[in-house]
């Protein structure tokens, strides 16, 4: 029935186009639509923005722009400088140098499965990938190039006007279409062939240690019924291991700092004091490749991350209630917050996290530098 309606729709649409376009370009010269190749256990409910459907030409252009150093003031860096494929599209640094070596103040986020995320940057200030993609170009601590200059550089290039024409039907470079093309390429960065994925699909078995880690990862501890848990899956949800996609529900204060040292985080966007110290829960896909960790890159290893959640949680006014309320032992509320995982359990969670590494993703030629 659905295909019938679609068929009828296509017929009507083409009739319409024919009648309007007489004597102009033939109708079949638009960009070629493509669908996102995703496993069936990634949600179908996340819709593609209607004003930026995925096309072959859009993705090709976006990939070039992602690796285009002309988009930085002095021509030395591109998006890919801080988002390197072999490191799960992160850069291995606590803070990333922009042009002239200016350091930012946030850790460059790893990129994958972005279609299922709805707020971008650690503090959530961009509502779409299209919006997000443009901001680092102009940011003085990143690529530091005024948008007008970016547009005129691309417009003056031999190839880009033709590529914009092919992707968006106009050879006029616009900031909107730069953002759209980058977003399209970024949506194709799907990581779904890790050992964890193969386990979901029933293709491989996990080792007993990895399986214990998986169980702990996805379990909120409940000492009254001897249910042991690592409490990770409360924020890193489901197969994607990323934050909740609705509103700001995927932002949390994960106990890095006490009230005196709490950064504003989400509060700087919402103005709500109860959002102070909340940051985006990132996807943990390829996490073993994306050190250092946290919004400020303060932890250099997964061991330090597990130690933090297990024994170094700092209480504050906005500490997430699911952390405040999580322990593997019955706690008196006056005691410091501790998860009470054993050393073996922490190691098991790390073993599970390592199954999230997707070698195919980090070496997929479709995502690599097209200028090489």
């Amino acid at each position, binding site marked *: 029935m659905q295909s*019938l309606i679609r*068929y*009828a729709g296509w*017929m*009507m649409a083409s009739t319409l186009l024919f009648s309007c376009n007489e004597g102009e370009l033939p109708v079949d010269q638009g960009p070629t639509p493509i669908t996102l190749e995703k496993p*069936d*256990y*990634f*949600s*179908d*409910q996340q819709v593609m923005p209607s004003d930026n459907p995925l096309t072959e030409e859009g993705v090709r252009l976006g990939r070039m722009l992602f690796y285009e150093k002309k988009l930085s003031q002095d021509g030395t860096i591109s998006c890919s400088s801080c988002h390197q494929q072999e490191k799960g599209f992160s850069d291995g640094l606590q803070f990333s140098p922009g042009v002239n070596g200016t350091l930012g103040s946030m850790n460059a986020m790893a990129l994958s499965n972005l279609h299922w995320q709805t707020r971008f940057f650690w503090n959530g200030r961009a509502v779409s990938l299209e919006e997000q993609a443009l901001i680092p170009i102009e940011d003085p601590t990143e690529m530091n190039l005024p948008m007008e200059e970016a547009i005129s550089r691309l417009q003056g290039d031999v190839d880009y006007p033709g590529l914009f024409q092919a992707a968006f039907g106009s050879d006029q470079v616009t900031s909107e279409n730069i953002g759209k093309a980058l977003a399209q390429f970024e949506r194709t960065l799907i990581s779904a062939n890790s050992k964890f994925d193969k386990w979901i699909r029933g293709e491989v078995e996990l080792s007993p240690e990895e399986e214990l880690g*998986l*169980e702990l990862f*996805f*379990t*909120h501890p*409940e000492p*009254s*019924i001897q*249910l042991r848990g690592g409490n990770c*899956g409360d924020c890193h*949800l*489901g*197969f*994607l291991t990323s934050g*909740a996609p*609705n*509103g700001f*529900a995927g932002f949390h204060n994960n106990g890095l700092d006490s009230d005196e040292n709490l950064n504003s985080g989400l509060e700087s966007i919402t103005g*709500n004091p*109860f*959002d102070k110290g909340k940051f985006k829960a990132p996807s943990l896909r390829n996490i073993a490749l994306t050190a250092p960790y946290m919004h400020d890159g303060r932890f250099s290893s997964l061991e330090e991350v597990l130690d933090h959640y297990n024994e170094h949680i700092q209480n504050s*006014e906005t500490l997430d*209630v*699911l952390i*405040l*309320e*999580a322990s593997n032992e*019955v706690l008196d*509320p*006056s005691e410091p917050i501790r998860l009470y995982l054993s050393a073996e359990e922490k190691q098991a969670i790390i073993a599970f996290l390592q199954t999230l590494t997707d070698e195919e993703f980090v070496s997929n030629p479709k995502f690599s530098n097209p200028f090489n």
Partner: protein
Amino acid sequence: MKNISYLFLAVLFAFTSCDKEDETPAQMNVKITFDNTLNGNPLELNQEIFTLPSGESFMVKKFKYYISNVILTDSETNTQYIETDSYHLMGQDFNSSIELGMIPSANYDQITFSIGVDEVANSRTDQTGDLDPNNDMAWNWNSGYKFVVLEGEFIHESTQERTGLVFHIGNNQNYATVTLPLSGLAAGKPASISLETAIDELFSNPNTLVPSNLASTTVMGGPVADQIGQNYADGFIKAN
């Protein structure tokens, strides 16, 4: 091409049928909306401080619940509309309405639905849509769904410390079916059924819960969870 002519016929028919004013359309558009409240006030997450039936102050961080197996009944003619594949994840700042779409016309005067998901759906998590286990409602990987989730914080009376209150209520015994009378629905007329949840009812009637007196402020099973299940079975959702 044949398909299209049917489509045109259908459109044509839709227009011509307007001429006969007294004829009740065969179908009517129905949607159900949910307004969440606490202490008689509209719920707001993460900013407003509410008062619980116990008198304690409470800030809500998350409130989600499953509504499933929706049935509308016209008790005079004994007509029923039974929604198929009827699982809806509702929640504050998440989803507040169920679109039944065009359904057969009747003077529906009753709505029946369940809080939670039925035993069949609750025995598997390899599902899509509102039952997608990535929705933060599947429990511990492979053991069914949370039916009602309430998370928030309060000041504990004995310690005066900020304390989390976490209700994750599930399990088949807490699947609750509710029937409510409806008024104002007329056959053939588009209708919006307005329902209201009262979070207060998780804490009272018949079982009174005082967060500061709970042995554990995280409730994910066991006798307290079943008490909350009994509480939401009656009076938690009302016709507005």
